[in-house]
C-alpha cells in the first residue's frame, strides 16, 4: 500500500510537469499502476490479457468483457465510436446491474479507477490509433417526461421494431428473443424493459436515450441512428404524405403527375439524408449543405428518440418493489363469499408482494445465470378456502418439447411453492431446510407449463428426495401466459383430510418459499431460481376491540386526572 501511495505522489508531481496527455496517448507509469490494480481486481474475470477469459469467466453470462475488440456497451458516444474515458470510469465506478460486473466505488479510489481505465485501453489498439476524441451524443434537446411524450414513444416502439426483440409489453419476450447471440457468439437476451433496475447502463431517460442512439456495441441490439429510422430526413408531416403515396403505389393505384413529382422529391430527400448519414458515420469530409441536411434529419431522429426513451421509462415502476428480507410477509386478505377467479377485477384491489429470486448454486447442477428476477404474489381467503395469484416474467414459453439427454427430463417452465408440513411452534422450532427440506420435510405445490390446469402435491426431504403425494388434493387451478408473463391462480380449502398437507389457520404464520424454472434458460431439476423462507399468514380481520378500548382508556385517564385534583384539593383544605 505504501508503495502505491508513493507512486501516486510521484505521479501527481509528474502530472504537473508533463504536458497533459492527449486522448490517445498513454503514460507508461499510468499503465503500470493500472496493471497492478487490474491483475489483482479484474483479471480473474477479464483475463490477464484482457480477453475476457479469466478463471471465473466460464460460469458467467454475459461473459466478462473481452477488451481486445474495443466493443463497449455503455457509451455516451455515437454508434461505431469508442467510449470516452469518462464512460469507462463511470461504468467501473457503478458496475453493471443484472450482471456479475461489480461496482468499484467502494474499493478503488478515484485515482485508482483512472489508472485502471488507462490500462484497459491498452488492450485495444484502436484507442491509440484514434487521434480524435469520440463524438458524443448531444443531450441538449431533451424532451422532458410527460404522458403525451410517452404516447408518441409508444407508436415508435412498434414502428422501429423494438417489439420484435423486447416484446409487446417490453418483457423481453419478442419473437427473435430466443435466437439472439452477441458478438462473441454467446447467448444473449433482450432486456426486460419493465425491470429497469437491471439495466446495465442506468434507468434514466438519458441513459435509455444513449443506449439506442449509440447502440449497445457487441450486442445484437442495433443502434437506432441515422437511416435505420423510417423515412430518415423527412419531417413528420412529409413522412405521413410519403407513406400515403407509397401505399397507393402498393395498392396498384395510379399516381397523378403532381403526386409522382412529390414522391420523387421525398425519395430524393430520404436518399440524400441517408447518404449523408453514411458519410458522417465514416467520418468523411462533408460539405456545409450535406452537413445541414444531416443535422436537420438527425433533429427529427433525436426528437423521436426522446419520446421513445420516455416510453421505455414508463414501462418500469418508479423503483424496484420493496422486499425487507425476513420481515416481508405475504398477508392473505379476508373476503366474504366467493373468492375471485383469475381474471376477476377484485384482484386489482390488492398489491403484489414481491419476492426476489436468485440462482440455485448450493447443489449441483447449479444455475449461475438466472433469468427470472422475482415472483409476485397476492392472496385472498374466506371462511373455507384460500386463493393465490402468482405472477412472474419469463421471456419464453417452454412446455415439454426439449429433453435433457441424460435424465430424460424436459426443459420446461414451472413453479413450486413450498411450505413446511406443519407450522412452527415457536422461534426455536427448526424450519425445514430452505431448499426442499431435509430431515424435516416440506410440502410443495408444483405447477408445470405442460399441464397448465393441474397442481401436483409433493413431499420433499431434500432437493433430490422428492415424492409425489399418493393422495392428490383438490385444487382449482387456472393459468395464463401472455406477453412474457405467467399468471397462476390456485384455490384450495383451508383444511384437508391428508396428514401430509399443510393445514391453514387464521393468524398463524407459516413459512413460505418459491422455486421457479425457466426452461428457455436451461433450468431443469436443481438448476433453477429460488428464494429464501418468507412468511405467509391469513390476516385476521382487524379486531373490533380497536373501537372499544381506546375511548375507555381516554375516559379512564380523564377520570384519574380529575380524581387526582380532588385528592390534592381536599388535602390542601
Amino acid at each position, binding site marked *: 500500500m505504501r508503495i502505491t501511495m508513493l507512486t501516486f505522489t510521484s505521479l501527481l508531481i509528474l502530472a504537473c510537469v508533463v504536458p497533459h496527455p492527449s486522448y490517445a496517448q498513454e503514460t507508461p507509469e499510468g499503465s503500470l499502476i493500472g496493471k497492478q490494480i487490474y491483475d489483482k481486481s479484474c483479471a480473474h474475470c477479464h483475463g490477464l490479457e484482457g480477453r475476457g477469459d479469466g478463471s471465473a469467466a466460464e460460469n458467467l453470462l454475459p461473459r466478462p468483457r473481452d477488451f481486445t475488440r474495443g466493443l463497449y456497451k455503455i457509451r455516451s458516444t455515437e454508434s461505431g465510436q469508442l467510449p470516452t474515458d469518462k464512460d469507462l470510469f463511470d461504468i467501473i465506478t457503478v458496475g453493471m446491474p443484472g450482471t*456479475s460486473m461489480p461496482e468499484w466505488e467502494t474499493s478503488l479510489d478515484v485515482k485508482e479507477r483512472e489508472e485502471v481505465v488507462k490500462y484497459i485501453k491498452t488492450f485495444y489498439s484502436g484507442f491509440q490509433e484514434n487521434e480524435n476524441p469520440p463524438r458524443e451524443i448531444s443531450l441538449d434537446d431533451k424532451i422532458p417526461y410527460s404522458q403525451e411524450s410517452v404516447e408518441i414513444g409508444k407508436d415508435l416502439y412498434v414502428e422501429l421494431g423494438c417489439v420484435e426483440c423486447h416484446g409487446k409489453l417490453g418483457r423481453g419476450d419478442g419473437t427473435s428473443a430466443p435466437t439472439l447471440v452477441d458478438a462473441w457468439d454467446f447467448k444473449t437476451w433482450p432486456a426486460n424493459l419493465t425491470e429497469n433496475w437491471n439495466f446495465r447502463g442506468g434507468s434514466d431517460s438519458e441513459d435509455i436515450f444513449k443506449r439506442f442512439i449509440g447502440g449497445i456495441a457487441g450486442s445484437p441490439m442495433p443502434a437506432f441512428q441515422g437511416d435505420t429510422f423510417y423515412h430518415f430526413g423527412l419531417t413528420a408531416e412529409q413522412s405521413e404524405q410519403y407513406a400515403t403515396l407509397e401505399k397507393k403505389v402498393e395498392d396498384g393505384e395510379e399516381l397523378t403527375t403532381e403526386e409522382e413529382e412529390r414522391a420523387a422529391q421525398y425519395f430524393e430527400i430520404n436518399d440524400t439524408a441517408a447518404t449523408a448519414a453514411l458519410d458522417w458515420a465514416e467520418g468523411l469530409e462533408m460539405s456545409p449543405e450535406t452537413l445541414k441536411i444531416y443535422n436537420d434529419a438527425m433533429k427529427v431522429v433525436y426528437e423521436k428518440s426522446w419520446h421513445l426513451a420516455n416510453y421505455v421509462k414508463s414501462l418500469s415502476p418508479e423503483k424496484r418493489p420493496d422486499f425487507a428480507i425476513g420481515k416481508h410477509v405475504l398477508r392473505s386478505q379476508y373476503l366474504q363469499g366467493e373468492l375471485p377467479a383469475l381474471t376477476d377485477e377484485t384482484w386489482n384491489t390488492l398489491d403484489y408482494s414481491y419476492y426476489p429470486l436468485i440462482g440455485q448454486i448450493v447443489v449441483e447442477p447449479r444455475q449461475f445465470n438466472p433469468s427470472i428476477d422475482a415472483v409476485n404474489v397476492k392472496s385472498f381467503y374466506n371462511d373455507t378456502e384460500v386463493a393465490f395469484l402468482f405472477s412472474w416474467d419469463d421471456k419464453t414459453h417452454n412446455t415439454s418439447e426439449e429433453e435433457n439427454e441424460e435424465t430424460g427430463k424436459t426443459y420446461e417452465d414451472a413453479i413450486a411453492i413450498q411450505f413446511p408440513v406443519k407450522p412452527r411452534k415457536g422461534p426455536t422450532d427448526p424450519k425445514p431446510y430452505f431448499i426442499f427440506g431435509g430431515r424435516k420435510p416440506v410440502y410443495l405445490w408444483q405447477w408445470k407449463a405442460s399441464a397448465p390446469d393441474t397442481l401436483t402435491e409433493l413431499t420433499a426431504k431434500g432437493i433430490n428426495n422428492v415424492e409425489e403425494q399418493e393422495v392428490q388434493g383438490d385444487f382449482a387451478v387456472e393459468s395464463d401466459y401472455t406477453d412474457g408473463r405467467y399468471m397462476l391462480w390456485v384455490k384450495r380449502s383451508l383444511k384437508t383430510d391428508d396428514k401430509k398437507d399443510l393445514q391453514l389457520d387464521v393468524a398463524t404464520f407459516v413459512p413460505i418459499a418459491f422455486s421457479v424454472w425457466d426452461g428457455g434458460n436451461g433450468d431443469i431439476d436443481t438448476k433453477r431460481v429460488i428464494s429464501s423462507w418468507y412468511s405467509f399468514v391469513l390476516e385476521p380481520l382487524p379486531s373490533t376491540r380497536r373501537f372499544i378500548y381506546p375511548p375507555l*382508556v*381516554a375516559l379512564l385517564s380523564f377520570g384519574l386526572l380529575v380524581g387526582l385534583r380532588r385528592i390534592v384539593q381536599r388535602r390542601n383544605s
Partner: protein
Amino acid sequence: MKKTSLFTICLTIFIVSWIFLRFVMGGIISAPIPNSVIAMYMGLILIAILVHVSVEDSRFTEFLRPVHETLVDDSKRTRRLVLVILIPLLMCGFSYTHIAQKTSPLGDPRQAHPKPPLELTYKDIVIDTMQDAQNPYRHYEKDDPELFKEHVDNGRRVYYQNCFYCHGDHLDGKGHFATALNPLPANFQDPGIIPNYQESFFFWRISKGGPGLPPAGTPWNTAMPIWEDFLTQEEIWDVIIFLSEYTGYTYRTFGEGH
C-alpha cells in the same frame, strides 16, 4: 431568569433518553432496539429519577411543586385545561395504534458463530482436533513465498468461481445473489470475523456449510453451501489463505508452534 424547575429537568431527561434509545441508538448499532428492551431501560431511568428526588423531603416537595400547582392553582387554569384534554387524547391514540398493529411472524434468533465440533473432518476423514488443525500450506508464507503465491492464486480462482456470487467481489458480503438471502452472506472485511477465528474454524464452516451448523445457527435458513461436495481439501485451505491475503487480516492462532 426563572430557574428551571426540578420537575422540568427530570421530564426532559426522561424524554431525551427515550428519543435517544428509540431513534438514535438503533442507528449507531445499526439495528432497531426492541420495544421490550427500551421499556426496561426507561423503567430503570424512571427509578433512578424517583430515587434521586426522594432522597430529601425538601427536594421531593420541590419536585412535586409544579405538578401540584398545575392541579389546583387558579393561575394555572389554561395549562390544566390543555393537559386534561391532551393526555386522554394521547392515551386514546396510543392504545388504538397498539391494538390495530399488524402481528408479525416469529423471529429467527440466530447465533452467527456457534461452537464448532471438537474434531475437524473433511467428508468422513478426520483431520485433527479443531484446536490443533493447521493450514498445511500456511508455512510456505515464510518457507517458500513463490509456492505460497501459487496457493493464494489458486484460492483466488476458487473464490471467484464459487464464492463471489454471495460473498461479493470485494469479500464484503454484497454479492449479486446476496439480496435474496437471509441470513446475509458473511462479510470478510468485517474486522470482527477473520481475526477472531482460527483457520480450522473456517475450514469447518466452508466444508460443512449452512446445514453443518448446530440449531443455534439456524442451519435451515442459511444458503452457505456444503463445499466438501465440490472442493478438495487443498482448495478449501487455499481459499482460506486467499480470504486473509485479500482483506489483510490474519486468523487467530492458539500460541506459537501449536
